[in-house]
């Protein structure tokens, strides 16, 4: 029996584990070092509170989320209603094409203005100013209580839409 031969794969596996650990260590050192010395504007803290991130909250609330490409698709789809959850003044200053103004603070009353346009099955995209606001999520939850079933949140909101060159319309709600 060739014991030396049977040990060879084990020896190679041990070498592989050691070499892999070395690569991991080098990568860890480089990553840590660069993150420490990079400008504060691009430095990432080792831990952030992702549990409070708007997308996590939407996920927990069972509200589907879409991102820029999905938002573009829905804005171009006439069957989808686009709802702006910000105040009427913010809406007038600039909003997504085809968006209707439905401030979350006044949703219970203003939703009646759109009763003729929306059915429980109308696909609805809700947005607000950007990832830092939760008005759109709150509006989506409220709309779900009203019985709307096809709701999608666009967490990037107006800020991301603008950043990537999307058309912005101005003017008060019709």
């Amino acid at each position, binding site marked *: 029996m060739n014991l030396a031969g049977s040990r060879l794969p084990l020896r190679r596996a041990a070498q592989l584990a050691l070499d892999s650990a070395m690569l991991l260590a080098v*990568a860890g050192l480089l990553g840590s070092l660069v993150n420490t010395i990079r400008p504060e504007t691009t430095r990432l803290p080792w831990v952030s509170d992702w549990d409070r991130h708007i997308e996590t909250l939407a996920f927990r609330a069972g509200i589907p989320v879409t991102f820029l*490409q999905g938002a573009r698709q829905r804005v171009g789809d006439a069957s989808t209603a686009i709802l702006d959850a910000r105040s009427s003044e913010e809406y007038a200053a600039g909003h997504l094409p085809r968006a209707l103004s439905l401030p979350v603070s006044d949703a219970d009353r203003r939703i009646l203005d759109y009763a003729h346009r929306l059915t429980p099955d109308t696909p609805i995209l809700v947005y607000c100013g950007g990832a830092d606001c939760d008005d759109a999520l709150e509006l989506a939850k409220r709309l779900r209580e009203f019985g709307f079933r096809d709701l999608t949140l666009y967490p*990037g909101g107006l800020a991301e839409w603008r950043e990537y060159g999307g058309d912005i319309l101005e003017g008060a709600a019709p």
Partner: protein
Amino acid sequence: MIRARPLFIWLARLAVAAVFLGACIAKIRDPEAFALATHRYRLLPGGLVNAVAILMPWLELTCGAALLAGPRRGRAAAAFLLTAMLLVFTGAISLNLIRGIEASCGCFTTRADAAVSDGWNLLRNGALIWLSAAVFLDAFRKPARPEIP
């Protein structure tokens, strides 16, 4: 005469290394955006997202460099880690597709207007897994020096 197998392994090394060296650039440049892309997979606990976003691109860089220019043992380890990473990435993208999450894969760009993941990402990853695994097996099986019979 050029032998096909060594040429294939050399091209596979080149391709996999180029992919990972290219993939790490955007992630290193904008770790916050990569952290968001990582978070969107909803697979990691919130406390680990940033650590992964900080370290993963450097692991891609280190392994890509080792695959391209490292000694045989370094190439074996790099190909082993890259194959493992590709398997994890492919599983994560598959889960996103199954769950209907309309997110981009965060593989080569962290821009918000990147294309949403689809079956093409899985096909591409499948090809990369094949190439990376071939490089790994070649480097792992090859003896470091001629063995005494």
